[in-house]
């Protein structure tokens, strides 16, 4: 009962906060609601026994990505944007598409059959801690994707500098 109540609170808050994120006119307000949303999602991850994921959700998403968003919003002078039309005129069509897709996805959930469970039960993960289990898998079985991820980040750093630079010296 307590678990359902806990999940209910988080689900309710996540839905309300994501609606606030996409409907606010001022981007600064959207970023602030999104900060609260990411903390709630991190709470949901803790509820699902994923401590490390909850930590990087707070550190990377809330700490790095949202600060980057906030920097850009404050860097650009969007004062005259606020008076412009914020919502596309064809929003009922978008609402219809989204509602139809939601109904399709939730209807498909009924056909879900759970497969065989893996070896990382809650007790097994608890005995060696979540971070250690994740790290061991990441540095052995998923070492190559991990290296590719580092390459993606390097390309992103170089690309961001090149794109935001005023003019390339030829």
């Amino acid at each position: 009962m307590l678990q359902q109540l806990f999940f209910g609170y988080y689900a309710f808050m996540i839905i309300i906060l994501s609606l606030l994120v996409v409907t606010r006119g001022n981007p600064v307000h959207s970023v602030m609601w999104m900060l609260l949303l990411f903390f709630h999602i991190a709470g949901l991850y803790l509820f699902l026994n994923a401590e490390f994921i909850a930590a990087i959700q707070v550190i990377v998403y809330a700490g790095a990505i949202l600060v980057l968003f906030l920097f850009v919003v404050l860097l650009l002078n969007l004062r005259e944007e606020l008076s412009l039309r914020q919502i596309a005129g064809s929003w009922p069509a978008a609402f219809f598409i989204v509602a139809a897709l939601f109904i399709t996805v939730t209807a498909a959930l009924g056909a879900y059959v759970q497969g065989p469970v893996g070896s990382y039960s809650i007790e097994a993960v608890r005995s060696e801690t979540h971070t250690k289990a994740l790290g061991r898998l990441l540095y052995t079985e998923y070492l190559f994707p991990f290296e590719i991820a580092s390459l993606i980040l390097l390309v992103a750093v170089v690309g961001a500098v090149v794109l935001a630079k005023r003019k390339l010296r030829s």
Partner: protein
Amino acid sequence: MVPLHWYLTLSAAVFMIGMFGFLTRRNIIIMFMSVELMLNAVNISLVSFSHYLQDMRGHILVFFVITVAAAEAAIGLAIIISLFRNKQTAHVDEMNEMKG
């Protein structure tokens, strides 16, 4: 015990809200934030699948999704800055240079 369906429905709902925001909002920064919202929705479903199937691979995938989201945010915001420098606007209806 909370059933898996609840998590998947929540994930689908957040994804649809993000998609609705991307389709309807005309401010490029808020459109970009809607994309982040959709990525987070997928992360919720990956972590819940991982928990219910007692497997660690979902967490690995979430790790990579967060990496790619960080790279995407850096590149995307750099593009927004250079667009704003040329057009002085963040309104996507004004950006129609590539229209044939």
